[in-house]
């Protein structure tokens, strides 16, 4: 619906981009101006944003599943209500992000179809299972925590609709993180069994969370142009280090041990140094071989397929209502 008003550049149908327009565009970016939907933008900028925003939207929606897994088993009514509200927030994030992507001339339906066809990615962290209640704490603390590290810089992203969506999303993510940490704290100060549950969750989630920042800078594909366009402001490794530095003291405060024997504080750099990340695991999960990839996609496909008759009914009813209104107007 937005497509007509945009300077769509369908590949193969237009020649090389106007060099002058490209220079003006880059000058606006360099001046920290926000690019808005109707502004001229390079086709590759648009493509990069559609890919990044839609992946982010898909991650929010698929991310509802691992936590949703504990809604019916939450251990108190207060926790149950908080968890429903949190998972509902993630759904809301997905919706704002799809709406932000739509300003670039794609539709939510198209993007969802790509996800369900297995052509679009989502954050691989959601391909790990939630086995115990402590996983709900660990996800809030670590996964939402890592998401915040990635997303705070996106609040200043050059594309206006994305940066505004991120400002709203980040507020809620930091609330999720505090809530997750508070679950961990309650477990860590609880019975021996609860503390063991918290430690086990940390053991399982720590390394996958470090992988959330993406491959090491030396191997990253998209960073250069994304940095020039101010879509990305910090490198993967820089954000990962920031996360580790923030999180290690939090784990110590909980009285839990990080599952990394190489972890040590470097007095000279004031950073926590950590061990080698198993990138072969990351690649396997990305390739579809994580513990839950198939289950997550099956759940999203089932929701979509089971909802089809409902969406059709809503459309059919709306069409009938329009026809009835038109008939009434004609009769009057």
């Amino acid at each position, binding site marked *: 619906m937005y497509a007509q008003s945009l300077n769509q550049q369908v590949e193969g149908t237009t020649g090389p981009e106007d060099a002058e327009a490209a220079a003006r565009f880059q000058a606006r970016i360099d001046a920290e101006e926000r690019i808005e939907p109707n502004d001229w933008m390079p086709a590759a900028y648009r493509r990069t944003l559609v890919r990044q925003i839609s992946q982010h939207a898909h991650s929010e929606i698929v991310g509802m599943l691992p936590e949703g897994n504990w809604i019916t088993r939450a*251990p108190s009514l207060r926790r149950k209500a908080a968890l429903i509200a949190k998972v509902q927030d993630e759904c809301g994030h997905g919706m704002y992000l799809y709406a932000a992507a739509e300003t670039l001339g794609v539709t939510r339906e198209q993007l969802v179809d790509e996800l369900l066809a297995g052509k679009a990615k989502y954050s691989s962290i959601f391909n790990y299972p939630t086995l115990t209640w402590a996983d709900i704490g660990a996800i809030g603390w670590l996964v939402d925590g890592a998401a915040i590290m990635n997303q705070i810089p996106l609040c200043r992203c050059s594309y206006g609709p994305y940066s505004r969506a991120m400002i709203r999303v980040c507020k809620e993510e930091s609330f999720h993180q505090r809530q997750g940490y508070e679950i961990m704290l309650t477990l860590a100060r609880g019975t021996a069994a609860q503390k063991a549950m918290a430690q086990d969750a940390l053991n399982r989630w720590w390394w996958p969370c470090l992988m959330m920042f993406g491959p090491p800078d030396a191997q990253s594909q998209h960073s250069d142009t994304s940095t020039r366009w101010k879509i990305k402001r910090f490198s993967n490794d820089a954000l990962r280090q920031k996360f580790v530095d923030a999180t290690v003291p939090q784990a110590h405060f909980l009285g839990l041990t990080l599952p990394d024997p190489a972890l040590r504080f470097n007095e000279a750099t004031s950073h926590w140094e950590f061990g080698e990340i198993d990138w072969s695991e990351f690649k396997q999960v990305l390739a579809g071989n994580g513990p839950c990839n198939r289950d997550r996609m099956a759940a999203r496909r089932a929701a979509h397929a089971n909802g089809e008759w409902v969406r059709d009914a809503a459309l059919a009813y709306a069409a009938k209502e329009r026809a009835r209104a038109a008939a009434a107007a004609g009769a009057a």
Partner: protein
Amino acid sequence: MYTGSITVADTPLLRYVLGRADDALVLGHRLSEWCGHGPLLEEDMALSNMALDLIGQARALYTYAGEVEAAGRDEDAYAYLRDVTSYANLLLVEQPNGDFARTIVRQLLFSAFIDPYWRALMASTDPTLAAIAAKAEKESAYHLRHASEWTVRLGDGTAESHARAQRALDELWPFTGELFTMPAGERALIDAGIAIDPETLRAPWRATVTRVVERATLTLPADGWMQRGGREGRHSEHLGHLLSDLQYLQRAFPGATW
């Protein structure tokens, strides 16, 4: 330390408050099962919203039950440590979600009753119940509107949605008689102006449901045999499974704080 199921005092007011709380919790729990699996994202949000409202109502009522019983029990003791035969919710609300039509029609049949119920209860001589009712009424009015709109869309949508909505209505109808039953002991509460006589809501309930069903081009089922027993703890097999999920952690780790 071992903490098994609790046995609560059997007084009319406590029984009454717990019954209303159980209705809200069990239906809220059912709606929360949709979270992440809704037919469209907007509806995922709406079902979760209704679940949150209902769980909020349950919490307020269980907390009040704790005051009434004065045995030092909090909201979670009632929700997590009572067995299936102690739960006093209506059979209607424990029925499985089924397809979206069944969830919506279940919501319509319940909300069309509970919304005027809360409205009447706002005049209760019990100030706590009156306050809980005032908040719950606003929420249930929205639930009724939402369920009505969807019932109409499904009934007057496609041939498939019409058939699914009609089947849901037919299958859930035998659970509507129980809305108007009055458990032993409730008469005294009604006479004292604390509770509402559900029989007074039968005509308005029927009028609301009939209006929606007609707009939806559906057919109101005939009043045949009506199932009952939920208020007395005689439930369908479904409730035990629901409670197995709901109560799992509290039962597996007795006495722990979460």
